[in-house]
């Protein structure tokens, strides 16, 4: 058992849930979702623990539909060569949301986007939370959820129809068009189609 777990319990008390040793010998500690941000900051910054490296962020949904979705953070202390796995339980009947750790590790940026893309977990405070592997207009849901069928929600014919009907300008995000200050120069009909929300809401239309 990783000694950081006892130190975590001493500092955060009830926010720290069960701690077990996984089959590969690493310690898994479960953390209440509201304490996640503080726990991660403490793990990164406190002397003697110093988990300065974020290895991975991912999520697990079990086949048992009752079990909560687990967020898994793999952290590592490069100095001490020690790993720790932090888990957060997200019950499915509640909102799937948790604080982002991008402020602590810039490397979490794309990893959290991927979890959002694949599981639909929202990371509060993420600077740029949008889909990453699937395209932005993808409407079939979250592919790695267990209720998502292996072949996708839409039929092949529907997928092809949508692909053929996609707007070419949809290849640029609103953010990108705003960079180039190109949005104002777009033809009226194109602007209208973009406004109608085939790409979701415009960031500046509200």
């Amino acid at each position, binding site marked *: 058992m990783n000694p950081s777990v006892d130190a975590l319990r001493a500092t955060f008390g009830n926010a720290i849930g069960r701690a077990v040793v996984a089959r590969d010998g690493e310690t898994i500690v479960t953390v209440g979702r509201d304490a996640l941000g503080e726990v991660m900051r403490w793990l990164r910054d406190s002397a003697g623990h110093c988990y300065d490296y974020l290895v991975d962020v991912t999520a697990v949904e079990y086949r048992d539909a009752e079990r909560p979705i687990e967020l898994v953070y793999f952290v590592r202390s490069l100095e001490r060569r020690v790993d720790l796995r932090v888990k957060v339980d997200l019950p499915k009947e509640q909102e799937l949301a948790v604080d982002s750790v991008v402020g602590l590790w*810039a490397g979490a940026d794309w990893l959290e986007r991927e979890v959002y893309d694949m599981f639909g977990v929202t990371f509060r405070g993420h600077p740029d939370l949008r889909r990453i592997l699937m395209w932005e207009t993808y409407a079939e849901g979250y592919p790695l959820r267990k209720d998502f069928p292996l072949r996708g929600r839409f039929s092949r014919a529907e997928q092809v129809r949508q692909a053929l009907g996609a707007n070419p300008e949809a290849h640029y995000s609103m953010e990108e068009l705003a960079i180039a200050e190109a949005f104002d120069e777009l033809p009226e009909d194109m602007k209208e189609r973009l406004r109608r929300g085939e790409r979701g809401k415009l960031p500046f239309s509200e």
Partner: protein
Amino acid sequence: MNKRTVELELATPGLDAQGRPVRVPLTVGGTGGGEVAGQVAVEPGSEHMLLNIGPQHPATHGVLRLVVELDGEVVVRCIPHVGYLHSGFEKLGEYRHYNQIIPLTDRTDYLSPMANNVGFALAAERLMGIAITPRCTVLRVIACEMSRVISHMVWLGTTAIDLGAFTPFLWAFQERERIYDLQEMWTGARLTTSVTRVGGMMADIPDAFVTGLRHFTETFPKTLHEIDGVLTRNAVWVGRTQNVGVLRREEAINHSLSGPMLRASGVAYDLRRDKPYLDYETYDFDVPVGEHGDVYDRYLVRLEECHQSNRILQQALARLPDGPVNVDDPRVILPSKSRAMSDMEAMIYHFKQVMEGVKAPVGEAYVGIENPKGELGTYLVSDGSAKPVRWRIRPPSFINLSSLPKMAEGHLLSDLIAINASVDIVMGEVDR
């Protein structure tokens, strides 16, 4: 006279008031790209341009799309778009037996398929608590290091081409071809090797393999020295790579970089040494570490890693023990065809394995291995059935690529190509 003016205008950006061409200095400062980028004055209020590179572009090393905001030639912001090669491997894995997932791992990082096979097999074995045989351990080390050599050769060749050096590309790909011949000899496939099985290997090495690999390890350093001679002190190469795409030590750690990218920034962390697997701690090899964290240091680190891989290959060949390759456990390893057809018990085991698969106990395991691109993690969660609940690949080049916007900021557009090349991405793995 007018004609002459037109010619000059074509050759130079403009004329001054006297009608003389305005000369643009070819080099600024003269010590490298970073300073050039720093000295290009960004005019306030000047118009920015949005440039789309890819997804089909030779310099993006696959179907990567970069949307770049440019101020003149200076990259103000770079927004990568990935996912064009997304195949849902992780989802597919949830519907496959453990051994059936191994062919999927070939197709993630397809420039080092054997190392991916090893990474997955190690994680599955740790989950199931299987100890592999000594011969298998050494064979897997050979598989990993061969992969490192070919992956670094592809990186070296394509990066050199991106920066205008064609010759090293040919040398590097020739060497890669020789490894591919060995892979073909061993597995029957050049690219999609699927060389491991849970608890062992798909096959033992054939007779001529050791001789062939030994010959390779003897002659390979010569090519490395030639590449070293052409590039390392080459003025163009140095000018295009030094001080370009610098990530300092703290930034590299904060961006979760791994592999040669992390080590080039001065962090001496190599999973083979610091979290050993496959008895890597018993091999004698050095971990090259860079100092400046720029493209040039990444090149030096990878070049030296090829030398070190060669050393490891030689040691592995010298110590390769005899004995079985697969563990002696009929629940995990398929019986031979002749036994399955003649022995009742073997046939039952064969049937159960093929139809039901190898069951893993409830629990989870993560194994990170030092792939050529960085830390390839395989995270398996099992609920006791023969198919994993979750198979997660920690993709090194995906995470390394996420630092590209940070690295490219403030550099010239042409440097963006060099920086992108230095990350060593393979889109099969980025998108999975």
